[in-house]
């Protein structure tokens, strides 16, 4: 079991994740993610897509893993990484269901996802986490190690393996159809907007 609840009510999540781990997470849960996660955004997804289509091996085995949609800023000399906040996830929607079918268990980003992604999260038992967009400096504190593992020529868009410790996030969409955006916004929407 890689999910446990801390004394502060925040759930500690350690990668890789099993289906049971994913099912225990609900929209609105605050989490701390530890272990290895992989970065990939637009350009990396565009390279992964034809491999997935042809059934070829990916440079990273996504089974049980989490992909973080981010393109970090360069590390200063001696530093691990620069700022590392999330990018808009919907640009990756086109590629996500196929990766979930391969066993990817989580993605981290910001913003709404398509209906197809929501359905794929349910079908393949996976979760969509949100980290705070624009909090890249704070988030860099939780990254202990960063190595490029594929597509180095893509620079910031290369696939990196990040070792994270207590990386803060929130469950935006869970594997049961729960949606924090819907619930949260409904609670604060007022008349005459």
């Amino acid at each position, binding site marked *: 079991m890689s999910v446990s609840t801390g004394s502060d009510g925040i759930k500690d999540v350690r990668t890789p994740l099993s289906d049971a781990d994913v099912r225990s997470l609900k929209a609105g849960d605050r989490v701390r993610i530890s272990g290895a996660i992989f970065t990939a955004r637009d350009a990396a997804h565009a390279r992964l897509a034809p491999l997935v289509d042809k059934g070829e091996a990916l440079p990273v085995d996504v089974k049980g893993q989490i992909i973080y949609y981010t393109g970090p800023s360069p590390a200063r000399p001696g530093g691990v990484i620069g*700022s590392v906040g999330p990018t808009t996830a919907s640009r990756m929607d086109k590629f996500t269901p196929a990766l979930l079918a391969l066993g990817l268990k989580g993605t981290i980003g910001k*913003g709404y996802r398509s209906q197809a992604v929501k359905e794929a999260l349910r079908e393949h038992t996976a979760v969509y986490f949100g980290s705070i967009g624009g909090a890249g400096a704070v988030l860099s504190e939780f990254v202990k190690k960063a190595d490029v593992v594929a597509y180095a020529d893509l620079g910031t868009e290369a696939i990196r393996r990040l070792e994270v410790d207590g990386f803060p996030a929130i469950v935006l969409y869970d594997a049961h159809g729960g949606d924090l955006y819907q619930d949260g916004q409904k609670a604060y929407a007022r008349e005459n907007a």
Partner: protein
Amino acid sequence: MEHAVRDIHVSTISDAVKKLCMDANWRLEPDMLRAFDRALGRERSDAGKQVLTILKQNAEMARTRQLPYCQDTGMVIAFVEVGQDVHVTGGALYDAINEGVGQGYTEGYLRASIVRSPFDRVNTGDNTPAVIHVDVVPGSTLKISVMAKGGGCENRSKYVMLTPAAGLPAVKDFIIECVKTAGPDACPPLILGVGIGGTFEKAAINSKKALFRELGSPNPDPMLDALEQELLERANRLGIGPQGYGGDTTSFGIHILTYPCHITSLPVAVTIECHAHRHKEVVL
């Protein structure tokens, strides 16, 4: 009256732009920090308050460690006001600005986010070129205002050509619709720059220019100021909140700039700006 022409060397311009780019990304302007505090005073949502608190910490960490506030260090937009009695020496003005951008982004460990072509998508490596707008004005100074404009919010910017008959109600509804469709993707609390009137391109440029007004300052035109307040109130009733997690702070401000327009036209351009509103200016 005769004015002596004042020489400004391109290296002075490059050095200034380099510093503006680094400072903009490391040090959020005081108007933004005040906006976080104002919002924390009235936000009802716990999730919203938590996001605002973390963003304040983020601004502090960015400043003290010289780390960019956001990893998307943006495309540089430069508005330049060149006094007509200024003579730029030693090279070309546009090259000097791009030289400063390249140096600032490379030496400041800021992300290179610009590709050389919309089709082959090859990164230029130093975040050049900038988008540069030049106005010639009276005087012998050169004012450079830069903004590091994030891509996620820029992608939610919109334009519409309304009819004069549709008028003000349609303008208002369009602006609110822009806030809704931007939603959490554009990193709220948002700031909206709105250009109304002029032509297709004039409205768009004014929508960027409007963002340089100090956040929280009144629009100098009382009618527009009242309109901005009404729209801000409406935007904050949508419930989207900080990061879209639900709350009262969907927007920090809506800035409108107008221009005369043709009898047939009512153009409206809305630039969506995120809370990473990084802007700095200098007068040489």
